[in-house]
């Protein structure tokens, strides 16, 4: 009986303790946040940056920005890039932030067409000018990356097979059953690879190419991590496919400490270039702050931090890359491309056509 009496008191005590801890928790999470409509936390107010869930930058850079501008930077991640853009479209009459980062070239036109963004002409480095979207500078390119087929070099040398090089190679009989790709409906590298084939074979030819891939037993996974960590045979995974759709930036992370060559490589003739943009949201409560955020993202310090924080290449080619990147992760010289406007016009059709083609 004494046990049950102790229990009787234990429960309220624990709930009480939870309550106290909970309040403490709420306090610490709400600390330093203010409403996006220009709070009073810092002299210059707050600026809210809406971004996707892969956004990351070192704390020191953020503090530097805050002390330089007197603004408080409030970063809000809203799911993946697609989900983020669609949320911005849905909330454009009452925007949930001031600036946005992470709209990629597959969603760029949708965002511009929906009127989510306010014009802002940032000063662009020369290397960035080729990527501009929107007539009045609605989107400012910040970083780029290539989605390419990655190959497990050890596997190929062990099986005494030449490493493929082009998209066409992948349909050859000697590479039957060796490639894993991602579903373009659920994965952004999957969509990028689909677009690479559209860029390579044209709006009319890509389906024929995919028929050959299917005939060559292409494996489809739902997400990048699924394809890369389960299906791929690379050093950090257990799978049996030596070819996988991944990023040009993937190989450096597979290099063991002290090694002089990479066990995997990106096939640079199979790449689609992704570009990530920033912009000022239309109807922002703090448009000036938003412009400062866009400028900051283009600043050399942030550009230099992008590779190791977000696995993308700075759009400013004058910024030095980490040595492992220059060594193991070069960008494609001639990536395939499809214009943002064309992507927006056709992406749903292409994905549906791909689905009926590959999935049946």
């Amino acid at each position, binding site marked *: *009986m004494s046990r*049950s*009496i102790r229990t*009787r008191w234990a429960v309220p005590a624990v709930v009480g303790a939870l309550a106290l801890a909970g309040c403490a928790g709420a306090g610490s999470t709400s600390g330093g946040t203010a409403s996006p409509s220009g709070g009073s936390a810092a002299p210059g107010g707050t600026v809210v940056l809406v971004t996707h869930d892969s956004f990351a930058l070192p704390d020191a850079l953020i503090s530097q920005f805050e002390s330089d501008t007197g603004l408080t930077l409030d970063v809000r991640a809203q799911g993946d890039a697609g989900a983020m853009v669609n949320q911005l479209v849905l909330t454009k009459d009452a925007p949930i932030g001031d600036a946005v980062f992470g709209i990629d070239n597959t969603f760029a036109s949708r965002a511009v067409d929906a009127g989510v963004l306010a014009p802002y002409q940032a000063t662009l480095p020369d290397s960035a000018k080729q990527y501009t979207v929107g007539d009045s500078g609605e989107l400012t390119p910040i970083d780029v990356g290539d989605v390419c087929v990655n190959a497990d070099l050890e596997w190929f040398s062990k099986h005494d097979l030449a490493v493929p090089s082009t998209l066409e190679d992948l349909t050859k009989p000697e590479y039957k059953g060796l490639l894993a790709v991602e579903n373009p409906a659920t994965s952004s590298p999957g969509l990028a690879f689909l677009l690479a084939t559209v860029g390579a074979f044209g709006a009319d030819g890509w389906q024929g190419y995919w028929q050959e891939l299917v005939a060559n037993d292409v494996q489809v996974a739902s997400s990048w991590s699924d394809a890369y960590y389960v299906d791929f045979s690379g050093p950090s995974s257990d799978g049996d496919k030596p070819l996988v759709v991944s990023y040009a930036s993937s190989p450096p992370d597979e290099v063991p400490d002290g090694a002089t060559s990479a066990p995997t490589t990106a096939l640079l003739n199979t790449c689609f270039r992704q570009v990530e943009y920033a912009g000022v949201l239309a109807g922002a409560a703090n448009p000036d702050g938003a412009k400062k955020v866009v400028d900051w993202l283009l600043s050399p310090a942030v550009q230099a931090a992008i590779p190791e924080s977000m696995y993308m290449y700075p759009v400013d080619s004058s910024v030095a890359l980490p040595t492992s990147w220059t060594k193991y992760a070069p960008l494609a010289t001639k990536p395939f491309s499809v214009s943002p406007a064309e992507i927006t016009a056709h992406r749903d059709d292409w994905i549906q056509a791909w689905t009926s083609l590959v999935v049946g």
Partner: protein
Amino acid sequence: MTGLGVRDLVVLYRDDDGSVATAVDHLDLDVATGEVVALLGPSGSGKSSLLRAVAGLEPAASGRIGWDGVDLAGVPTHRRGFGLMFQDGQLFGHRDVAGNVAFGLQMQRMPARERATRVSELLGLVGLGGFEHRAISTLSGGERQRVALARSLAPGPRLLLLDEPLSALDRALRERLADDVRAALLATGTTALFVTHDHDEAFAVADRIAVMDAGRLLQVDAPALLWQAPATRRVAEFLGYEAFAPVDAPVAAVLGSGLAVPVGTVAGRSWSDGTSDAVLAVGPGSLETAADGPLAGEVRSAGFRRGVIELGVVVEGLGAVTVVERSAGRTGAADLPRAGTTVRLRPVVGGVARIG
């Protein structure tokens, strides 16, 4: 008017399927302060509904329930100051014995020290001294009911309602506990309304007995009076009387010697002799065998029961009656009168009742 006053009370009983039955039908009842009244009736007669209405657990469809002349309509259960003891105790399993008994005191915000004293005092009263820290699950059925009684008495309710508190127990325990309940009620001076379907229990506990049937009260009287002068044949039957004879029937002249007060008054009530519709009632214990008895009966059955012998006898001009006699050393079936034999019988003084 002190104590409980129930006037013209109607309680409806709603079934799950939505049908409505009248459980208590325009009923009047008074219980004076300090009095113990037993509510006696067959199952389904509405006793429990009446009790629950008095406790405030069941709404009254019409009529009035008052205490010391104050209407209790709108007073919620917990403010009525009444206690209620259930048939199956309904003890709080998560509290020990002391915790159960102390519950009402805790509700009255009695200081812990006083509470402990009062709890031991009550546990002593119900014969469970030293049981304070026992878990409920370790108690026997009888012990549980004693705890329930102590718990009900502890807050000193102005009226204690007992809903068949002993009927889940075995017979021997029931009889012993009935006396203990009576003693406890008297010792604490508690006013009580005691629901039961067992008349032995009612007679053992109550100052007055109210006989209830089909939602109405048939008779409210002191036990002795109720026994000797049931108001109606239905009451008499419920009390166990088996055979009836009009006062002007030939057999009544013989039976008249069994009346407690042959003709005239009983407990201040007078009845006139010769009323044509008056009836004499005979039951177990009304007749005894005697070699020179004035009545003759034919034995139909004979058997031992709880140390006595019970004979089923058909008396001429009266009908089937149970005759009880001491076993007096007889042990086997061979010692019993055989069926078909004739026995002589005489009325026991005080054993015959008169209706009307």
